[in-house]
C-alpha cells in the first residue's frame, strides 16, 4: 500500500544557471496519514521549498511527489489547483489575509469560485471562526485584529474545504510565545481530530507536541526521528 505522502529523490534547483546550489538535494520521505511532523533547520536549509512542493505550489526540478496515491507531476495547473483546494490547507507566517475583507469574508474567499448560496458560505465561515476561538469577531478587518487572531482567521480559511493535510510555514513566527502556544494548541487539536500536520518551526516547544521531527541541512534530510529527535535537538 502506498504511503499517504511520498517523496522520492526530490531535488529543487532554482534558476537555470548551472552554478546555483540545490535548495533540495535528493530528498526521499514517507509520511503516514495522521502524523504531526515538524520540520526544522537553518535558514536556507530548504524548509519552505519542501513545503511548497508538498503543497503542489511548485513542481520539483526532479524526483516524484505523490499524495494519496496521486502523482502530482501528472496534474495540470488546474489539476494542482483542485488538489490544493481539496487536499491542502496552507497557513503562512505572515497570515496573508486580504486586508480589505472582514474575517468572515477572508474565510469565505476559498469558497468564492463555488456555486453555493452566500448564506451557506457565511454560515460555514462563522462556524469555522468560532471553532478557532473567534466568535463575535466575524466582521472585523484584519487591521482590527491582533496577530494571533489573524492567524486564527488564516487557520479557519485553511480549513474551509476540510482538507486532510495542513501545511504551516512558521505559523507562530510573528507571534509572542503565549499567543504562539495558543495557536499551537489549535494545531494539536486539529491533529487529534485526524488532520495530517506538517509544520516548519523554530519554536522548540513545538517539538514536544509532534509525533515526528525532520531536520534539514543544505537541502538534505539530516535527521528524521519519530520520537527521539525532539530530545536530541534540545
Amino acid at each position: 500500500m502506498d504511503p499517504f505522502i511520498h517523496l522520492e529523490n526530490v531535488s529543487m534547483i532554482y534558476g537555470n544557471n548551472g552554478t546555483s546550489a540545490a535548495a533540495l538535494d535528493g530528498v526521499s520521505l514517507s509520511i503516514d496519514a495522521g502524523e504531526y511532523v515538524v520540520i526544522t533547520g537553518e535558514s536556507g536549509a530548504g524548509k519552505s521549498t519542501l513545503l511548497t512542493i508538498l503543497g503542489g505550489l511548485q513542481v520539483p526540478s526532479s524526483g516524484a511527489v505523490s499524495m494519496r496515491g496521486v502523482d502530482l507531476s501528472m496534474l495540470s495547473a488546474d489539476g494542482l489547483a483542485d488538489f490544493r483546494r481539496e487536499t491542502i490547507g496552507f497557513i503562512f507566517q505572515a497570515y496573508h489575509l486580504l486586508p480589505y475583507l472582514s474575517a468572515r469574508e477572508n474565510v469565505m474567499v476559498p469558497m468564492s469560485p463555488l456555486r453555493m448560496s452566500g448564506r451557506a458560505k457565511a454560515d460555514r465561515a462563522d462556524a469555522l471562526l468560532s471553532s478557532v476561538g473567534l466568535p463575535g469577531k466575524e466582521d472585523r478587518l484584519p487591521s482590527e485584529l491582533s496577530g494571533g487572531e489573524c492567524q486564527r482567521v488564516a487557520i479557519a480559511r485553511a480549513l474551509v474545504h476540510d482538507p486532510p493535510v495542513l501545511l504551516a510555514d512558521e505559523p507562530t513566527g510573528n507571534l509572542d510565545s503565549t499567543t504562539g502556544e495558543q495557536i499551537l494548541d489549535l494545531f494539536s487539536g486539529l491533529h487529534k481530530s485526524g488532520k495530517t500536520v506538517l509544520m516548519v518551526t523554530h519554536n522548540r516547544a513545538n517539538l514536544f507536541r509532534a509525533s515526528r521531527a525532520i531536520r534539514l541541512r543544505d537541502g538534505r534530510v539530516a535527521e528524521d526521528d519519530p520520537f527521539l529527535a525532539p530530545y536530541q535537538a534540545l
Partner: protein
Amino acid sequence: MNIRKLAWKNLLRRKTRAVFTGLGIFLGIGTFVALASLTAQMEGAVRDKLDKFGANILVTPRAEQLSLGFGDISLGGAQVAHAKLTMEDRKAIESIALKDRLRIVAPYLLAAADASGKDFVWMGVSAADIGQARPWWKISGSTIREREEVILGSEAAAALDKGPGGTVTSGNRKFRVAGVLAPTGEKEDAMVIADIRDVQALGKNPKGVTFFEVAALCKDCPVEDIVAQIGGALPGAKVSAIRQVVESRKAAVDQFRKLGLGVSAIVLAIAGLMVFVTVMGSVQERTREIGVLRAVGFRRRAILSLLFWESGWVSLVSSVSGAAVGLIAAMLASPLFGIERGGIAPSPALIGVAIGMTLGLLGAIPPARKAAALSPTEAIRSL
C-alpha cells in the same frame, strides 16, 4: 462572497486606481457619445430639411447666355422678357411618370421693373406655393395672398423705406406691401416679390416663366430619373439637380461625422491603453494576493474572471456615466450646431456603453492572462 463581490470589494479598496482606470473610459465614451449623438441629431435635422425644404431640381430655358442658378442671373433693364418657359410647361412637368414623387412645382419669373420710381428686380412667385417652396422665409407682416400685393426683400424695403401696410407703385399700378422679408443672404433680399401674374403683366410677358423649382418628396428620391423625365417632357429646357444649402450642409455633417469618429477613435484607444496600464499595474501590485488565491485552490479561470469582473465593474460604471454625460453635453451643445429640436438619440449611448465594456474587457485581457500564468510560488515569494 463570490468572485463578483470579491472583485467589487477590491475595487472599493483601491478607489483611486479604480477611478483612474474608469476615467479613460469615461472620457472616451463621453466624447464618443457626445459626438455621435450630435452627428445623429444633425443628420436628422438635415434629413428633415431635405424632405421639407428641398427644391432639388431647377428647370431653366436652354439659353446660352443664361448662367445657371437664379442667384447668378443678371438682368439688364430692358432685356427682361427673356423667359422662354411658360406656365404651360408646369403641366408638362406635373404629368411625368414619376409625378407622384413631386411635391412642389414652383414657377418663378424675374423681371426688371419700376417700383415707386426706382429700378428693381421683381420676382414673380406662385402665391399659393411660395410658403412651401420657401419655408425658411421669415416675413414680418404677412405673405402675399392675392394679386396687387408684394413682399419686399429686406434691402428693397430699406431702399424704398416702406414697411407692411405701405404702398408701392409701378407704372399706373398700385401694390400693397403685405410683408417684409427678414434678410436671407440671397438675391431676393434686394427684390420685390409679387404674384407671378402681376410680374408677367409688368414685364409684358404673359405666361412667361424664368425657371421652375421642383421639389421631390423624399430624401432618397430617384432624382436622376425625375430629371431625365422632365428633360424628356421639356426638350427646350435645361433640367439640373441642384446642390443647395441643405445638401452642402449634409456634406458638412459628413465631415463632422468623420472628424467625430476620428477623435473618438483616438480617445477610445487611449482609454483602452489606460485600462491596460492600470490593470497591469494592479496585477503587479497584487502578485502576492493572487498567489494566496492560487494557494487556496483558485483555478486560473477564477483568477481571470476576478480580473475581468474588476475591469467589468469599472467599465460598466464609467461607460454608463460617460454615456449619460455625453448625451447631456450633446443636448446642451446642439443649439450651437443649429439644431432646433435637439433630442436624445439613444443608439449612440447604447453603442457607447457596449464599446466601453468591450474596451475595458479587452484592455484587461493581457494583464489577466499574465496574472493567471503566474506560478503560485512565484506569486508568494514571501511564503
